[in-house]
């Protein structure tokens, strides 16, 4: 299958500290890649670099064959190919649910409002939230908001979904409803790059697991090998910290 995302030896520093260096990764169309690692290992920063919310110091990022350049008009065009969902949902508080979802398709992609709304309603229906279309974000629970944020990203028809610890801010009982939506999308064959701390979920969704530590890929492999036969001591130790589950 064709490669949709190629990361070639990228490096990033904050002041003098390496966030990551010489990081390379490629993702094929339809592949689900899950990145795990201890806090501060650079995994969220890595996702943010992919759509240019953070700059990289060296290396290059190719998305669908196009080079991601910083500070150019092209970056807006490339961002349309990347749907990102954040830990804290970040819906726009002054817009209704439906308005939140259709804002970018209508304003950025100049799609017909009626058509965008119809598609939005279809997607809302699928995540069980069509009755909330006229509500405002503050009237929704965390899990509901996160499902809306996923729909909002989907309506831009992105090539790749970047999910940045989307359940980390949720109450435990709401984690499942969000993860089920992601699993649903995974089965549709969407390309996804997921950063998470939910190991059970990672196991269920991943085609490939990546363990990131101190800005380097320490280990990668299929979920079976990754969880049952970790090769490095660092990954063994990391997985052990979840062992009470």
């Amino acid at each position: 299958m064709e490669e949709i995302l190629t990361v070639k030896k990228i490096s990033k520093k904050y002041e003098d500290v390496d966030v990551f260096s010489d990081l390379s990764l490629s993702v094929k169309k339809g592949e689900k890649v899950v990145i795990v690692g201890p806090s501060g290992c650079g995994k969220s920063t890595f996702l943010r670099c992919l759509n240019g919310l953070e700059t990289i110091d060296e290396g290059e990022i190719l998305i669908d064959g196009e080079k991601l350049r910083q500070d150019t008009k092209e970056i807006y065009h490339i961002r349309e190919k990347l749907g990102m969902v954040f830990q804290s949902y970040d819906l726009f508080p002054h817009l209704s649910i439906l308005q939140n979802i259709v804002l970018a398709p209508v304003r950025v992609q100049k799609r017909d409002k009626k058509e965008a709304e119809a598609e939005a309603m279809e997607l809302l229906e699928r995540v069980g939230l069509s009755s909330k279309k006229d509500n405002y974000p503050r009237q929704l629970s965390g899990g509901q908001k996160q499902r809306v944020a996923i729909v909002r990203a989907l309506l831009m028809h992105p090539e790749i979904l970047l999910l940045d610890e989307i359940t980390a801010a949720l109450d435990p009982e709401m984690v499942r409803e969000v993860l089920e939506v992601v699993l649903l999308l995974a089965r549709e064959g969407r390309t996804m790059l997921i950063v998470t701390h939910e190991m059970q979920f990672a196991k269920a969704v991943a085609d490939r697991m990546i363990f990131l530590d101190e800005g380097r890929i320490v280990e990668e492999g299929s979920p079976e090998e990754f969880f049952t036969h970790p090769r490095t001591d660092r990954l063994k130790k990391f997985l052990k910290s979840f062992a009470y589950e």
Partner: protein
Amino acid sequence: MGFDVLLKGNNLLRLLQGLEVALKISLLSVVISLAGGVLLGVVVSLKNNVVNGVYRVYLEIVRIMPQLVLLFIVYFGTTKAMGINLSAEAASVIVFSFWGIAEMADLVRGALAGIPVIQYEASYALGLNRIQAYRFVIVPQILRRMVPLSINLITRMIKTTSLVMMIGIVEVLKVGQQIIEANRKTSPNGAFGVFAVVFLLYFLACWPISMLSKYLEKKWEN
């Protein structure tokens, strides 16, 4: 009760003309303050050390100094010290704008600072460019935060115009005093009636603005 004084001659008309003087000064000052305050608020939000240092001193001066002292300094002080001959109206507009710009800038700065960075990032991540992010996401949120606070400032400015009679401007309160003085013999109880009407006039000037604010707040409740 002394309301009869108002019907004598053209007393009521004179009061209304006095109100017009007060409203002209406040309207002009409010427009200057809104425009200048938004501009200054944005500049201050760029966090240049020198600019913000000067701005902080400016804001403190405005907050500490009674408006009346500022009026005296500008009207009497500049005339004597600098040989500039300002009309009382011009001096009033300068003082009220000086005050309004500082307060307005602080409101804008506060509203801008209150928008989380992630709101910008969420907009960019959806493909919105900088202008679109401001137009559809950031500015509407700022407006919603600003409206009640700026309406409060505007009504305060209108009310405070009653001070300008101290530098010789014949506005609504001064007209009221004049009417009472002139009719002291014939209507010794004039004070109550006249001041009650002055009160009513201020109320009529500020109330619609407050209602507008309430309406917008309700409309934007979410």
